């Protein structure tokens, strides 16, 4: 277990509005972190800071090892699906190949190794059959798999997923978490979910982001612990459905 990203008392925001206040988080190479929190609380802002899309106003983000030292980017990113133009004329194969964009230089030739990598990734995610389809013909779940394939084709050390469970059905969500669980053996994963209701039991730790960040080092809370804390929400559950209750905290 080694540390790959170190976020230290980061303040970040857009224009004059500070959204993230004094956020610190260490990410280790075997982490599977679920990020939850209300809309506008700064989940996406935090992702943007980690991805290097947004410079923090204060504080530092350090990438350990070779994560950000050369052109060979070691962070895989799956954006929110509504940011993607579904009418754009591009095939599944090309979308996945674009995960190796840092290699496409002059004359735009991709090596055989790149094409092989793309094929292997398509197979791993189970979407070989739609390889040559234009993205406009895909369902929400298929699209999500394509974006996941693009995120991991470069064999990243950190995989960041922004609300991958929107626009998909429950069956796909189960499938997705199975794949992520497998991937977690090779890379750290950060997943942002839009509601607490459906976070995977594979998630190891939970970070609650609402302007500030509250890190729950475990994804489980025992019944004794439950009794000790006031629960901020009412829980309705059917018997053995796994669920997590986080202790009340102030942001």
């Amino acid at each position: 277990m080694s540390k790959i990203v170190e976020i230290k008392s980061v303040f970040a925001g857009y224009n004059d509005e500070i959204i993230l206040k004094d956020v610190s988080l260490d990410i280790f190479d075997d982490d599977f972190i679920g990020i939850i929190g209300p809309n506008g609380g700064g989940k996406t802002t935090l992702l943007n800071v980690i991805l290097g899309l947004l410079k923090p106003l204060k504080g530092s983000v350090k990438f350990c090892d070779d994560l950000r030292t050369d052109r060979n980017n070691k962070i895989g990113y799956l954006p929110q699906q509504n940011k993607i133009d579904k009418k754009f004329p591009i095939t599944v194969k090309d979308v996945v190949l674009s995960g190796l964009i840092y290699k496409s230089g002059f004359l735009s030739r991709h090596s055989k190794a790149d094409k092989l990598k793309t094929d292997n990734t398509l197979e791993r995610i189970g979407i070989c059959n739609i390889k040559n389809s234009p993205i406009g013909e895909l369902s929400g779940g298929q699209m999500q798999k394509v974006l996941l394939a693009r995120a991991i084709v470069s064999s990243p050390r950190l995989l960041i997923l922004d609300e991958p469970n929107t626009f998909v059905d429950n069956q796909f969500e189960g499938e997705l978490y199975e794949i992520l669980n497998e991937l977690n053996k090779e890379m750290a994963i950060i997943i942002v979910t839009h509601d607490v209701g459906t976070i995977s039991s594979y998630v190891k730790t939970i970070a609650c982001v609402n302007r500030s960040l509250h890190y729950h080092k475990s994804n489980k809370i025992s019944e004794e612990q439950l009794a000790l804390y006031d629960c901020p929400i009412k829980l309705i559950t059917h018997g053995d459905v796994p669920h997590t209750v986080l202790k009340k905290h102030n942001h």
Partner: protein
Amino acid sequence: MISELLQYKFITNSLLAGILASISCGIIGTYIVTRRMVFLSGGITHASFGGIGIGYFFGFNPIISAAVFGILSALGIEFVSKRSEIREDSVIGILWSFGMAVGIMFVFLTPGYAPNLMSYLFGSILTVSTLDILLMAGLSLILIIVFIAFYRIILFISYDQEFAKTHRIAVSLINYILISLVALTIVLNIKVVGIILVISLLTIPQSTANLFTKNFKNIIIASIVIGLIGAFLGLVISYKINIPSGASIIFSLVIIFILAKLFQLSVRKIKLKKQKV
């Protein structure tokens, strides 16, 4: 009739202009349409009229000043919309009308009658000069080289800029270069169909091509071919019934689009019928 037409130099020039316009607009139009930059391109087109007015007033080639003006407004829109709190489409609206206002002011300040002003507004492919042809040929060559050499980078950035940024690609730089090429393409094609109509050369062939292919590269190639057919038909109509070539070219392109759409619909119907049986 064709050999008779080719005897006139202005006819060969206009044919050449039609071919070159199809190439440059086929390539840049595909970029504009797939990135949903049609309104932005409309803004650049009209803003460049400011450059034409300035060219008239100071007495140099209006196309040169329009190119400078067009590129500056394109870069301005790209720069301001990414940074300020003003919405991008509002920035475009402001520059759109500002350019027109500057153009009208300078045209009216220019002493005497402004010759050929109508040809800039509505296009006049028959008055295309040899210099215009050379500029268009140079532009087409640059576009072909850029789009072949950097095809994948352009495709990937157009598809998902943010993702490209996370991979440390110089997205802003490439955006600035491409938007300048958009402005140049618009300005150099103004002579062919005019400010009011140039946006059609950048959108109608692409929309027609997009009916049949969902592949970026194929849309470029098909748009060029469709543009060529439209330009040739338009020129013949323009010559036959003596109307401005810009209007007849766009008229032909729209007819081609409608026919293509009808063809696509009937093919779909036949397919559906076959499935039912």
